């Protein structure tokens, strides 16, 4: 399935002007968007596909704003369409999940939604950055 997704994403014509470039690295797909420079991963875990991108790293955040950042992320996870905030090690991530049974079109749209959310949130997250 991952190979199919790679091929589909590479040929995908985005309605939002995104230019996706996907490659299979091990058992994960790495997706780059050329205009925003954004990078994301897509992996299959049993019955779900999980798409994820790093929103901000811990070392970018001003120490005195960490608590406020967490408040922001918890609050914004709900209204953010199809995506949620999470934390893996030193990275605050935005991720979305869908059933493995889904269509390739849905996968591409989920990837785009994640990109749009990441772009929108990146702007908001700059207020928490350190010097």
């Amino acid at each position, binding site marked *: 399935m991952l190979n199919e997704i790679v091929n589909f994403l590479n040929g995908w014509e985005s309605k939002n002007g995104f230019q996706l470039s996907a*490659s299979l*690295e*091990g*058992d*994960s797909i*790495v997706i780059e968007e050329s*205009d*925003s*420079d*954004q*990078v*994301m*991963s*897509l*992996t*299959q*875990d*049993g019955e*779900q596909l*999980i798409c*994820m*991108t*790093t*929103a*901000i*790293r811990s*070392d*970018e955040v001003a120490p005195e704003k960490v608590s406020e950042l967490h408040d922001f992320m918890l609050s914004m996870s709900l209204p953010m369409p199809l995506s949620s905030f999470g*934390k*893996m*090690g*030193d*990275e605050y991530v*935005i*991720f979305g999940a869908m059933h493995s049974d889904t269509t390739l079109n849905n996968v591409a749209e989920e990837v785009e939604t994640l990109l749009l959310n*990441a*772009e929108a*949130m*990146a*702007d908001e*997250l*700059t207020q928490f*950055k350190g010097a």
Partner: protein
Amino acid sequence: MSLLSKIWTSVRGGATEAGEAIVDSQSIRIMEQELRDADKDLNAARAGLGSIVGQVTGLKREAADYQEKIDNHMDYAGQALDAGDDALAEEIAEKIAEYEEELAVRTSAIEVSDKQANLMKDQIRQNERAIAKLKREKDMIKTTEKVQSAQKAVAGKFSGANSSLRSATESLERKRKAQIELGDRMQADQDLQNEEGGADLAAKMAKAGIGDAKKSSKDVLDRLRAKKKA
């Protein structure tokens, strides 16, 4: 430490080193054994429940039979009494008493079995929940391993000078810098164009003899002649 705590420790710590498991193998073995035991208990409880339910069904059928006999014999006893046959009525009454004893035994057994069945149903529900919890923890371990592996894949692809994962905020900053630089370049080009355009224009004006045109020797002589005439 619970399995969930171990998963949290792993997620907090970031992607594991190659070969290092999210949760130690001992914990995994314990979890898998617990799953097997819980499955076994669940199957035994379901079989036990099935057996009790079967017993209760049989008992209820027998109880119903005895009740029917009691009802019928009460009728017969009544008829015997009506016929004045007390001896027969007494015999029938003895039979009724036997049937009532049998019914009482079965009614009591049904009550006990019903209580047992309810206990087993509770047990089954608890087992099912325990199994669901263990399976969920197993799935969470798998998911954690998968996403950490995905992160490593992204980091591995872009390793080198920028070995840490590129964040959305960094991408935005880069994009904005690039836009500013592009804007500056375009402005510089425009300025250059204006300058060159200005030089061109000055040259054209000079050719047409307009504006601060280059002074020629002819102009100087003409002015001198004019002065002399004056």
